[in-house]
């Protein structure tokens, strides 16, 4: 074969403008999954302060929870988790072979519901720090 032009990875991702619902769902699911597992690691790390004693644990939790930034991150975490759950359920249905025709709609539904739940829970999450 003579030369050919390899457009490379950059161009693969440069196509995001033409992504369809299913691709976005895939991307978001990936992203949220990674955030969740990342969080799980930190979560366990935080919790294991309990190993050094009751006081250390309580102080860490209270200390962290009093930071506005942590509260905001928690809202983000909720959004991420809710999307991952909803889209995860969507994927489970797809795996079972139901609702394939409605795959776009169900993705949009996941997004909307995630948004709604996130907004609705903001008061609960931030109460006490602002």
């Amino acid at each position, binding site marked *: 074969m003579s030369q050919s032009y390899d457009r490379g990875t950059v161009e693969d991702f440069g196509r995001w403008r033409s992504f369809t*619902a299913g691709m976005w769902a895939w991307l978001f699911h990936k992203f949220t999954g990674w955030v969740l597992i990342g969080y799980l690691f930190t979560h366990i790390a935080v919790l294991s302060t309990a190993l050094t004693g009751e006081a250390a644990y309580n102080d860490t939790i209270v200390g962290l929870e009093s930071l506005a930034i942590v509260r905001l991150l928690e809202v983000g975490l909720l959004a991420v988790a809710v999307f991952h759950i909803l889209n995860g359920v969507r994927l489970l249905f797809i795996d079972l072979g139901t609702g394939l025709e409605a795959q776009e709609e169900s993705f949009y539904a996941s997004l909307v519901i995630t948004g709604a739940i996130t907004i609705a829970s903001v008061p609960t999450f931030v109460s006490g720090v602002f």
Partner: protein
Amino acid sequence: MSTQPDQTDDETESTPEPDAEPEPESPGERRRAEKAARAEAAEEEAADAEPDLGDDAITLKVFRYDPEVEGKTEPRFDTFRIPFTKGMTVLDALIEARDTYDSSLTFRHSCRQAVCGSDALFINGRQRLGCQTQIADLDGDVVRVEPLPHQDVVKDLVVDMEHFYDQMEAVEPYFQTDETPDGELEEQFQTPENREEIKMSTRCIWCGACMSSCNIAADENEYLGPAAINKAYRFAMDEREGENMKEHRMELIEQENGVWRCQTQFSCTNVCPKDIPLTEHIQELKREAVKSNLKFW
């Protein structure tokens, strides 16, 4: 009028340098150089005059690349203005551009009726068959044509299909039965229902649109891709092949690079010009695989 350089990529479209030393050039080269110069002049004129092709002219932006032709080794977009006629397809427009303006414009095509699978292209941001895409159905007045993404470009709109063919051929894409009929004129019966079940999967024309649209199949990886899995489906679901053969087929598609890699992006299903429900077929095979595994557990 002739090809017009795309405004955004104009650095790549440099005017041909006049040869400094008298290189021994062939008549063909000389002719081409002259022609290029003339075309250039005509182009400038045309750009000034803004040729009038009627209200119905469309603008075609086409990806150009040629590994050995000067000025084309850096990919660029060329712009053609084509008079629009009713019922014109993107393929028609490309042919028109080639036959009237630039005969070096290169693309695959043959049947003009969506059966040969030669002209899967990236048209306005989506994989489509040029011959099956009515220009009137596209949004906007600019038609942007690129070679299929995720594949190496050989020249202009022609991509290297070898990887796709390799994947298609990796799934043992041929009918095999547990037992062959004895008599010369003996058919293997198949219920109309079973034929119906595999019908959609047999429609594939090997155009490669699906593979090109799948992010998982992109890159240098060995994922079989939707078309090849669909091919496997076509045989695995065909009752005439028999149970043992089906086991064998399931093994093939359950490998590392088989069905498990699909992340249900659905883009394959979206772009398939033959409306094959690819994702559905892949998912069905995943479930079949789990089921057949559970049986032996």
